[in-house]
């Protein structure tokens, strides 16, 4: 069975600094998708970034980028120039192609300090 592990329950970062959130996963599949979702205090889940396993290039969305290491089964999220609005719970998620079942990690609570 696939698993997703987020080993950092809580993190904090100063405004304008850079922070990296870790995620590792376990699977025997070769084709899959990885995601980072953000859950602000409003509780609404928002997609931050997605990565297709067959793509070598790391995904980037403005200040958010990933470091995808397929052999190591690692998928970390880097937030550059952190803003107060980045304060949220961040979830890493995995989906094996064709299954349409998403497995989530336990989350990392990020606090951006002014």
């Amino acid at each position, binding site marked *: 069975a696939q698993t997703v592990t*987020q080993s950092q*329950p809580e993190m904090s970062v100063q405004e304008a600094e850079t922070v990296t959130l870790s995620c590792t996963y376990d699977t025997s599949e070769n084709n899959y*998708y990885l*995601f980072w*979702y953000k859950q602000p205090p409003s*509780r*609404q*889940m928002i*997609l931050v970034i*997605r990565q297709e396993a067959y793509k070598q290039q790391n995904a980037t969305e403005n200040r958010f980028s990933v470091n995808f290491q397929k052999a190591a089964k690692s998928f970390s999220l880097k937030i550059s120039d952190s803003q107060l609005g980045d304060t949220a719970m961040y*979830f890493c998620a995995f*989906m094996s192609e064709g299954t*349409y*079942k*998403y*497995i*989530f*990690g*336990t*989350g990392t609570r990020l606090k951006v300090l002014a």
Partner: protein
Amino acid sequence: DAGITQSPRHKVTETGTPVTLRCHQTENHRYMYWYRQDPGHGLRLIHYSYGVKDTDKGEVSDGYSVSRSKTEDFLLTLESATSSQTSVYFCASQRESGANVLTFGAGSRLTVL
């Protein structure tokens, strides 16, 4: 954009009573999901649906049942609520093709006394 709405948003009930949470989507998405969110556990899949009348169990399905009689509606039922089912429940949906991105509802907070 009101792609997915959940109702009720908040509910307090007593142990042993039945509870139904409703999820309604206007996206014509084929796939729908129910998750529960608990501290230290993240989001755990309860049940999901891959079409009208087609459902399957997730990792924490005991004590829950679902039904999907129309594409747009996915109901989650707790036949006899227990205190361990106190949680925040999220519905999500996804279309059949494309970017494989989940669209979430706003969540339903259920408290079982």
